[in-house]
């Protein structure tokens, strides 16, 4: 890993100034996505700006028809939050299935969302639940936020402060996990809420999270596992690696979608 200048700001304004001060500055939250890619020299930031000392980014708030999760909340905090467990249990369960206990203690929602790994779980939850990504300067709907593998709508100097999830009537996440990393080989979040039924898939496509319109329409007409069991997605553009080939991933999307619908009860 190349060396860099480390900044530990104690306010959002200081963090923004540090982010703008370095030519290749990056934010670091829990570091569980960024440090591994830095070790591989796939990223070599000149400056790292830590958000750990910035106040106000670690709260989980029940807003009635929505739940707002601070960007620095760890996966363990989301999984264990009484508010999340009561209002959006599918989100708590999803967070509880990320990586392992130590990864969940360090990795954060903001870091995961900003990194947009094509096999990460949070993008599927954000898109299916119709979440809003809140930054230092604006609010971005999940549909517009995720823009392909490792790409998001964030500006270089933009800081995620929170993610706001509408409370669905029912939702569930089903994941076929890589047995070593627990990353999704295929993960499907199904949510039935104010915006209708939404089906979001992670882990499968080289372009990252995507929705399956045909499944959403079928579930809108009849919310049952059988409604999606016969809907196949194309293997074009699916990831293919030692864990699973493209055809198998496409098959898994249908299986995981059916399981998620059935888990909605």
């Amino acid at each position, binding site marked *: 890993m190349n060396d860099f200048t480390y900044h530990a700001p104690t306010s959002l304004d200081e963090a923004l100034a540090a982010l703008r001060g370095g030519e290749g500055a990056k934010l670091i939250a829990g570091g569980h996505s960024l440090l*591994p890619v830095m070790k591989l020299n796939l990223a070599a930031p000149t400056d790292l700006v830590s958000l750990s000392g910035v106040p106000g980014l670690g709260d989980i708030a029940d807003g009635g028809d929505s739940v707002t999760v601070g960007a620095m909340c760890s996966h363990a905090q989301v999984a264990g939050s009484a508010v999340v467990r009561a209002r959006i249990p599918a989100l708590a369960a999803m967070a509880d299935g990320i990586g392992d*206990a*130590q990864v969940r203690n360090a990795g954060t929602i903001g870091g995961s969302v900003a990194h947009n790994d094509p096999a990460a779980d949070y993008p599927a939850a954000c898109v299916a639940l119709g979440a809003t990504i809140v930054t230092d300067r604006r609010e971005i709907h999940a549909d517009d936020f995720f823009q392909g593998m490792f790409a998001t709508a964030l500006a270089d100097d933009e800081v995620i402060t929170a993610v706001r999830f509408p409370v669905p009537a029912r939702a569930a996440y089903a994941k076929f996990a890589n047995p070593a990393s627990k990353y999704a080989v295929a993960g499907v979040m199904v949510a039935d809420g104010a915006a209708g039924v939404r089906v979001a898939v992670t882990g499968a496509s080289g372009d990252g999270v995507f929705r399956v319109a045909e499944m959403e329409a079928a579930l809108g007409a009849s919310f049952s596992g059988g409604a999606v069991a016969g809907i196949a997605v194309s293997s074009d553009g699916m990831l293919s690696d030692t864990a699973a080939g493209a055809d198998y991933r496409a098959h898994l999307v249908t299986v995981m979608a059916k399981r998620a619908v059935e888990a909605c009860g």
Partner: protein
Amino acid sequence: MPSVTMTVNGMERSGTVESRTLLVDFLREHLGLTGTHVGCDTSQCGACVVHVNGSSVKSCTCLAVQADGADVTTIEGLANGADLHPMQEAFREHHGLQCGFCTPGMVMSAVDLANQNADPSEHEVREWLEGNLCRCTGYHNIVKAVQAGARAMGGGS
């Protein structure tokens, strides 16, 4: 170069590091606490697990500067002199190790579990140890040790 100060096993320790210095390297190379091991260096195997502010984390995926000001506990901080910590004693009693490479991380992970769950089921222990790999034992005795250690701790470390 940045200087860091943290409480390690109850003692304030300082050092000058590179920004890129990992917490595990600070513990091992700067402080000589070589009980914390580096296995995979990719946050999968768990040989490097330590507690930072009471939570178990993988110290190969944490910068030393990120732990500046933190309260860190390593495997060396568990025993009280010659008296093993109840979790260490349980690993010895139940033969929860063979080569011992993964053991420091296993024990630190197990203590974190026991702090949250005084009587974990076999299933809960196996789920919790997802991030700790052992290539010798088949885990069976480790699971028995963690359950016994948690009960011996009686809900506190």
